[in-house]
């Protein structure tokens, strides 16, 4: 007779990182089946929203949406709606139109259709005008169709799709009546169920060392910092969060973590905090989110109502 309260933990390389799913509280067979469906949801997000897959919605949009409306998957449309809203509410600090800046820095591959000389948008210079620029640049039409205003628009959903994938995986686990679980896409994670989950946050300046420990229950936690490749070094690599105002990597914040009810919002808000620092307070509050970030001088800034859940490393 199989234990009805088993727990399993599985990991697969997806979304350019390691996606880990833990599930507990049913038989092993029931958990394996639920985790399989959850990974399938993540794989769907990967297939639809990857910049690298040539037949993803993102690649189809970047190739063709300037010439005419392109129909996308319901999930892609949901992410684009959220991205445009976040762009507006963050005063431009969150922007999915950073693909060309990422390419210039070698963080995204060149794609022939995108490397033709792109006219710079004069309206991308001030934050007030940026609001209108994205609404003018990305048109969300009925029936999941999307159109770009001109051929200089190129999107990358790398700052939001991982969190969305985590939310879809959690949804799949819950649909299968898994009572307790965790989905972690390379540090963007969400937990659900009655248990507390303890999360260590890597020090953005030295990723092999934890900077603090956070107790999380029924919530999402996402982090942004330099990339980390322990195959080669224990040091963090350059940051791949782009400041839309300068089209260069975020410089004065070395890492940020955001806690929110859902992971898509937490994921996207880390980019806002990386770029805006304490000025992100209104949008954090709007989304019921808390944040901590480390500025380049080593100071930790943390929203005040989060202090009981966060334990800083000695």
């Amino acid at each position, binding site marked *: 007779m199989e234990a009805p309260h*088993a*727990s399993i*933990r*599985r*990991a*697969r*390389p997806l979304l*350019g*990182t*390691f996606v*880990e799913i*833990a599930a*507990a509280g049913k038989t092993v067979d029931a958990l394996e089946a639920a985790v399989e469906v959850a990974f399938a949801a993540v794989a769907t997000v990967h297939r639809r929203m990857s910049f690298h897959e040539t037949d993803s919605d993102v690649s189809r949009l970047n190739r063709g949406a300037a010439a005419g409306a392109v129909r996308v998957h319901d999930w892609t449309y949901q992410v684009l709606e959220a991205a445009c809203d976040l762009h507006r509410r963050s005063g431009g600090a969150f922007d999915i139109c950073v693909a060309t800046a990422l390419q210039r820095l070698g963080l995204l591959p060149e794609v022939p259709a995108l490397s033709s000389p792109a006219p710079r948008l004069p309206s991308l210079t001030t934050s007030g005008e940026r609001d209108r620029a994205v609404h003018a640049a990305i048109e969300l039409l009925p029936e999941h169709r999307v159109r770009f205003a001109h051929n200089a628009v190129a999107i990358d959903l790398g700052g939001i799709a991982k969190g969305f994938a985590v939310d879809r995986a959690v949804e799949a686990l819950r649909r299968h009546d898994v009572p307790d679980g*965790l989905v*972690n896409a*390379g*540090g*963007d*994670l969400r937990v659900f169920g009655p*248990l*507390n*989950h*303890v*999360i*260590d946050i*890597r020090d*953005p*300046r030295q*990723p*092999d*060392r*934890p*900077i603090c420990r956070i107790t999380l229950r029924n919530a999402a936690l996402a*982090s*942004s*910092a330099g*990339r*980390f*490749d*322990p*195959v*080669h*070094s*224990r040091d963090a690599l350059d940051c791949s969060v782009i400041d839309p105002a300068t089209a260069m990597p975020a410089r004065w914040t070395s*890492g940020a*973590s955001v806690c929110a009810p859902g992971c898509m919002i937490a994921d996207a808000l880390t980019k806002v905090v990386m770029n805006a620092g*304490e000025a992100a*307070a*209104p949008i*954090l509050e709007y989304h019921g989110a*808390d944040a901590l970030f480390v500025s380049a001088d*080593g*100071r*930790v*800034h*943390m*929203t*005040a*109502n989060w202090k009981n859940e966060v334990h*800083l490393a000695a």
Partner: protein
Amino acid sequence: MSDWLRFTLPAVVAAVASPAYAVQYLSIDAAKKLAFPSANRFVENGGLTWKAHAGDRLIGLFVVDHVIGKHLYIDYAVALNPDGRVMRVDILQYRESYGGEVREPGWLAQFVGKTSSSPLKVGSDIRNISGATLSSLHVTEGVKRILATYGSPTR
């Protein structure tokens, strides 16, 4: 409007002994069965590869490989169908280490042949970690290597 608390952290001390981050997800045997649930026989095919059979029928190939870096050890498994297409990739073991024990054969022995019956307590002995985005590039490259070697139809 949220208020902010501010702390100053001590400068990074390189000598701090960092905890290793390690998870065993699946044994080789458990991964084989998950990848090929209908298989009743796995025939060794040299190295860490197995042919999966359901009765007389060949249903795929199972390959175990690893990535070893200066501070990282990842053991992963790739399941290919008879056409040589990737069906799934599972991480079997993940370990970030900062002491050099990664290359010790004694440590490798800890998971070779280990069964899936060892219970795994989520959130207690194994910690969750968030922070700098980990690259899975090396596993992706490994899967490409495996496809180059085994990606043609098997007989």
